[in-house]
């Protein structure tokens, strides 16, 4: 049965020979991963769908530049990373940070941090909302690095390959970004933490 399933390289070769339908199995195979990446950077579902669509359109139009020396998945994830970076640059927000911006859940999380809480799910979503706030205060490239390094747990080497930064540059940017996040966190509730 497996012999009948074409490989990525076979599908790509068919697309390049003028058969666009062969691109569909590649979309079906990789779209969950691309959606997961896009949801790290965009909140609204319509924005997520636009990012994913752009990723696959770019991949299709630049398919001839895929040399095949690395797995197609790596090449596609690089395309996804650069597309998300473009999205962040276009949607960079400059917000004033203050505690009144926090929701009740977020305030509660900060109040009870370190304590055992049975409502794990609510806890996680409040924490995620807070992390999103902190990430929005970063520059797009720093945000990408922190997301990949501290949330997706990618290695510095992997991030360097995905972003074209050097490994030392990734480390420096991550350090700087964490400092910025701490500053933003301190401004969220200065009376509690300073």
């Amino acid at each position, binding site marked *: 049965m497996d012999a009948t399933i074409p490989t990525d390289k076979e599908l790509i070769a068919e697309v390049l020979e003028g058969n666009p*339908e062969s691109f569909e199995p590649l979309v079906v195979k990789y779209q*969950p991963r691309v959606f997961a990446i896009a949801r790290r950077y965009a909140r609204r579902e319509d924005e997520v769908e636009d990012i*994913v*669509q752009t990723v696959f*359109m770019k991949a299709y139009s630049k398919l001839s530049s895929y040399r095949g020396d690395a797995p197609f998945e790596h090449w596609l994830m690089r395309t996804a990373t650069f597309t998300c970076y473009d999205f962040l640059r276009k949607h960079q927000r400059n917000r004033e940070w203050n505690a009144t911006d926090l929701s009740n859940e977020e305030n509660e999380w900060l109040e009870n941090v370190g304590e055992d809480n049975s409502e794990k799910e609510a806890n*996680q*979503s409040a*924490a995620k909302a807070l992390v999103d706030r902190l990430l929005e205060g970063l520059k797009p490239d720093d945000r990408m690095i922190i997301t990949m390094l501290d949330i997706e747990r990618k290695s510095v080497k992997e991030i360097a390959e995905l972003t074209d930064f050097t490994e030392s540059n990734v480390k420096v940017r991550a350090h700087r970004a964490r400092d910025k996040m701490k500053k933003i*966190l301190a401004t969220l509730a200065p009376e509690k933490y300073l």
Partner: protein
Amino acid sequence: MKKIEDILERLLAETRGIPANDRVPYAFEKRIMAHIKEAPAAVANIADVWSAWAQSLWKAVVPCLAVLVLVAVWMKAPTDGTGATTPQGNAAPAIANFEAPGEEDLESIVMLAIDPDSTGE
């Protein structure tokens, strides 16, 4: 007093615990494929527009050159003072010169049109 560093680490750890949401909307691949099938047509249309523009530019080259040559010949040809050009078959084309006699004649014709009493000198 809670340490900011610990809080940040705790926040990131909680966020890491949330599984990545890789849900795909129903038939999303069909939407992608529809766009891909439209794309070559759009590219072809753009190419058509450019090729038409290039063709029209090439067609315009010959008339433009002809007009250029005619104007050059008319400008260089000596005049008989009445404004009408009298090309002389045996005369070699003159090199453009600000002191060419034709220019003085042209000036006197223009002045004559403005002020019929002036002699042009």
